Structure formats: structure tokens, C-alpha cells
């Protein structure tokens, strides 16, 4: 401790570790300070898929696409296997109304140049034989990929630790020091002080706390999600699958009729194959503070939804459940930004349900901003100044 760094990153989830990696690659001396250990919070309590058909057309989808391309490069760049796989994804429609909305929405994405197929019920069953037979159709996106989220964090750190990156785990940031002109001059922790002119707040749902330290209000709220895991068996599904209702639960501005029980916890069925023939089944979206208990009430609704889409699950065991809290932000756009009023203070947080997929791009943008380079994409929508 008591060293001087070019940049101090607070929080070692997927966002903080990606920023660390990208900053060291630009030649900076970086400290990564983490209260617990690498990837112990949201970044290991989630799924990890990078999707296009769950993004609104426009910048959101563009970021999704850019992230997928970046994962392909990272797979070659990083020496640590983070289980990258690209086998596409399916979105399922339960009603004609959903299918209608999905078709329109898919056509918008196709018009922007994304490879999406609109499937009828027969085509759907051909892709996934264990699906319920009464579905109305769906969307298939070729590009979608998945990674192991916490291994991605390990991979980022593994590549640069000791080569420009020092990691301080079990170290809590308690304050940010500024000089008389509000410039960042250091980071206080429960283990000592790190001198620096630049700090990046990558604290996910805790970003507001690190905001308060410099007197700014970061409007991020924890939005909980529960996931169930099946026992190892045979491959139930071949790719990531989501009910199209997922879109509805994610973006409240797409209107659809939904079951009240499902509505209460904003449950939308998702399933993805994981290592060892297990499947991960999700998920819910509700505001319940920082609590990460997987309540039985939510588990029940998710299990019910799962059996509705995959009747075969009825007799398959659930062996574990867990919950995580997504860093929710009203506008569905993260903050990836310098805070002008506090020179040297950056924020990279608020990725809600896309933090894993957007991590590579976020790290890159932050490193470009700090290096004073032109960012690889327009960062105005991610700017903190949108709150004025």
C-alpha cells in the first residue's frame, strides 16, 4: 500500500477487471481495489450471454454486436479459457400477440443488418425437440454467444497482474481524496492510501456509495434475479433460449399481456446449457434492496415457467438456486463516463442485465477516455452529464 498509480479501479467484478486489463494494455500502472475477492458479487451470480435480439434497435444492439466481435478477439488475446462459445440463441413466443411484436421487432433489427431468422412452430421444434409443442414461433439469432462470467474476470486479471496491475483484494475503499479544485488525488482504503489522479468507480450496485464519497448522486438500484440449476443429465437444450416475454420484462415500453403471477416478480423464462450438461434456468427481475436470497416464491414461479416451456423438466431435478443483483439504471444505458465536475473521477457501472456482454467494450472505452484518445464509439449516451 501507499503506492502511487496512474489509475485506481474500485470494484473487481467483470467491469472493473475489464477496465484494468484494457488500461494496462495502454501502458498505465493500475491498482484494482476490491472489498471481497475477484468476481464475488453480481459477476458470479448471473448468466453470461451476449445477445442481440434482447437489445433495442439502435445503440443498444450496436453495443451488443460490438461486444460479440470483441469476445472473439479476446478469446485469442487472453491466455485463460473463459469458456467462450457461439452457438446462437432462440427467443420463444407464447401467443400470437407476442409473435406479432417479435416479428416487427426482428424486422427492425434485420433492417439494421443483424442476422436473425423468424421461425414458425415447426422450425422451432426442429431446433429444440424438447420444447412445448403449442408455441407460436420464435426468433433465432446466429451471432449470440456465451462465456463463463467469473472466468472472464479471472482471465482479464491473469493477463496483466504483475505486469502493470496490482490487485488489492479484501480491501475496502472508504473515501476519495480531492484537492482544493476538486481534482482526484487519492483513494483511501481500510488498508491505507493509494495516490492517484484517476479513479474509476466500477462498483456495480454499490456505485452510488462511491459516488457519495465525492458528493454525486448515481441513480443505480439493485434489481434482483434468481437462477435455478438442474442436475447433470443429458443435454436438454442446445442453445440459449429466452421467452420473448423477457423483452417485455426488460423494457417496459414493449406492451404485452402477461400472467399476473409472472408479472409480480417480472419472471421471464431463460435456459442455457452449462458445463457438464447442467442447465441454468432463469429468471426474475424485482427490486428488493441488496438481498440475494433466492426466495421460494420466486423459485416456484420460475420452475413453473420452465416446465411450461420444457415439459420434460417436470421430472428433472433442481439442485441449486442463487440470486444476484443487477445494477439497474432507469434509461437502460450504463454510465461509462468521466465526471466533469470532479476531474479524474470516472464511472463504469449500471449495466443491469448486460454487464458481462458489455464488459469488453466498457473497458476499452474507459481506457480510451483515460488515454485521451477518440473513443471507438459515440459515448454521449453513456455520459453522466445526461442527468443535467
Amino acid at each position, binding site marked *: 500500500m501507499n503506492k502511487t498509480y496512474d489509475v485506481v479501479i474500485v470494484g473487481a467484478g467483470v467491469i472493473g477487471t475489464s477496465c484494468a486489463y484494457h488500461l494496462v494494455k495502454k501502458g498505465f500502472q493500475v491498482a484494482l481495489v476490491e472489498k471481497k475477492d475477484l*468476481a464475488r458479487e453480481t459477476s458470479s451470480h448471473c448468466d453470461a450471454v451476449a445477445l442481440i435480439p434482447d437489445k433495442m434497435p439502435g445503440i443498444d444492439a450496436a453495443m451488443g454486436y460490438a461486444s460479440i466481435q470483441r469476445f472473439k478477439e479476446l478469446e485469442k488475446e487472453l491466455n485463460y479459457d473463459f469458456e467462450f462459445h457461439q452457438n446462437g440463441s432462440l427467443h420463444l413466443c407464447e401467443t400470437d400477440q407476442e409473435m406479432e411484436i417479435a416479428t416487427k421487432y426482428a424486422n427492425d433489427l434485420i433492417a439494421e443488418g443483424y442476422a436473425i431468422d423468424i421461425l414458425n412452430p415447426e422450425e422451432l421444434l426442429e431446433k429444440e425437440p424438447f420444447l412445448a409443442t403449442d408455441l407460436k414461433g420464435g426468433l433465432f439469432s446466429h451471432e449470440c454467444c456465451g462465456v463463463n462470467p467469473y472466468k472472464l474476470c*479471472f482471465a482479464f486479471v491473469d493477463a496483466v497482474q504483475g505486469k502493470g496491475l496490482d490487485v488489492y483484494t479484501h480491501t475496502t475503499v472508504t473515501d476519495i481524496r480531492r484537492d482544493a479544485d476538486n481534482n482526484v488525488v487519492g483513494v483511501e482504503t481500510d488498508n491505507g492510501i493509494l495516490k492517484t489522479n484517476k479513479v474509476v468507480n466500477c462498483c456495480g450496485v454499490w456505485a452510488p456509495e462511491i459516488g457519495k464519497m465525492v458528493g454525486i448522486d448515481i441513480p443505480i438500484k439493485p434489481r434482483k434475479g434468481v437462477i435455478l440449476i438442474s442436475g447433470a443429465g443429458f443435454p436438454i437444450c442446445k442453445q440459449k433460449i429466452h421467452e420473448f416475454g423477457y423483452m417485455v420484462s426488460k423494457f417496459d415500453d414493449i406492451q404485452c399481456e402477461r400472467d399476473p403471477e409472472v408479472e409480480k416478480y417480472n419472471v421471464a423464462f431463460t435456459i442455457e446449457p452449462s458445463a457438464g450438461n447442467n442447465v441454468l434456468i432463469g429468471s426474475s427481475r424485482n427490486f428488493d434492496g441488496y438481498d440475494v436470497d433466492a426466495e421460494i416464491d420466486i423459485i416456484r414461479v420460475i420452475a413453473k415457467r420452465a416446465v411450461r416451456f420444457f415439459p420434460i423438466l417436470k421430472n428433472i*431435478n433442481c439442485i441449486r438456486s442463487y440470486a444476484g443483483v443487477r445494477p439497474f439504471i432507469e434509461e437502460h444505458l450504463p454510465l461509462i463516463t468521466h465526471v466533469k465536475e470532479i476531474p479524474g473521477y470516472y464511472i463504469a457501472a449500471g449495466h443491469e442485465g448486460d454487464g458481462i456482454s458489455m464488459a469488453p467494450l466498457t473497458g476499452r472505452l474507459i481506457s480510451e477516455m483515460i488515454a485521451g484518445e477518440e473513443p471507438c464509439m459515440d459515448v454521449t449516451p453513456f455520459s453522466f452529464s445526461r442527468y443535467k
Partner: protein
Amino acid sequence: MKLSETGILTKADLVEMGRYPSEERMKKGPVAVAECVQDIPCNPCETACPFKAIHIGENISNLPKIDVNKCNGCTTCVSACSGLAIFVLDKSYSDSYGKVTFPYEYNHSFKVDDIVKAANRGGKHVCEGKILKITNTQKADRTTVITLEVPIEYVDEVRSIYRDKQHQSSKEEIMSEKLADDVLVCRCEEITAGEIREAIRQGATDITGVKLRTRAGMGLCQGRTCEALVNQIIRQELGNSPADIGFSTPRTPQRPVTFGTLGGDLDE
């Protein structure tokens, strides 16, 4: 007292289930008894028996049926049973003494003619016994099979012997023993001690760190079986205190439950 009340099987339980050889049969000569009462999917005994006296059938969760007429008490099944639940009993030996043959998987230096403390199914010392035979075949893969002479009234009770004092290690000794790299620690996910050490080299310092890097503890049993060993390995490698090594987070459901059950009455 019965199994359901004490957790310890009794002869009465076995007789009631029709799973114990008759007095008459035991008086004729050695015969195997499978004290196996749970529907575990397991059938090595069936294939081990050279006389085809053990039957399990298609459903491998069936309990083994021993045909006491085909069984000649050869003891092959004793070492084949991974649950250490098969014994060979003999009340034809003399009027006052009988023989009990049982599997023994501890280190020992017992010799034939040693007088040892014989123990019942609950592990309690009930009488003295004399070792008549110790076999350690290659096929038995380190499961020693011991035949003990005991007073005839104890043949239905004695199922093992007290451990050899010289070979009892203290808890500290056991905990400081270093597992070979190829030992499977997490059986559900098939993770070896070597893989766990590699995770520690990569930066894991606690149970969760090892779990995230290797999947040890993520399988069907949720770490109930391997957590103590993972803890031991971390302690040996890093000298961390148990408090720092921590525990894995308990997760609902504690035992596997079908999605159908969790989801409620899905038939209606």
C-alpha cells in the same frame, strides 16, 4: 430396537424383511448375507459372484437377492460390495463357536491367531474374537477380508473389529496428510486434489475461490462431501485460518427436488 428408530440395522430388521439366512442354513456351512436395505443403484455383488447366487436384475436399484442354495460362502462378494454390507456367516464350525467374515478397509498389522475386540453393527465392543484368516487379493483392490472366530451366540451380532492401535492416526495426522494430486476430491464434478492446488496457485484463497475456478462443490451434493477436504488442501497450501477459508454458501434446495414439484401442481 429397529433401524428406523436407531439408525442401526438389527438382525430382527433383516429377518422381518426376509433378508437373513435361516438357522438351519447357517448350521450347514458358510453363507453370505447382504445387509443392504436401501435402494441404491449399485450391482457389483451380482457380477462378482462366481456361482450366480446373487440376483439384482434390470433395475439396478433393486436389493440383492441371495440364493442360499447356490451360495457356498466363498466370500468373493464381501470385497466386491462397495457399501461394505456383505458378510459371510458360519454356524457349522463347532457347537460353541462360529465364524464371521467381513470386509476391513483400515490399515492394520493383524495376524492370524490374534485375539481382537469384536464389534457389533453399531461399532460397540461385544466380545473377543480370534482371527482365523486374512485375505488381501489383488482383485479385492485393497479391501482386506477377515474371518473371525466368535462365540456362536455372537455370529448374528459381530460385524467388524476394533481398529489396530498402532495404525490409528490422530486427527492432526490425518489432516496433515497430503493427498496425491490424482486423488478425486470432488466426486460429483470429478475434480482432483491437483486441480484444486492449481486453482490455489491461480489465486484462490477460500472455498468459493476454488469452487469458481474448478467447479468443486458445484455438483449434485453441493459440496457436502468434498468441502472439508478442499478446506484441508487450502490450509496445507496457504496456511490460512479456517475462518478465512470460509464455507460455501448454502443454496436452496438442500436436496434435489424436481422442477415439477417446485412449480406446484402442474397436472391440474
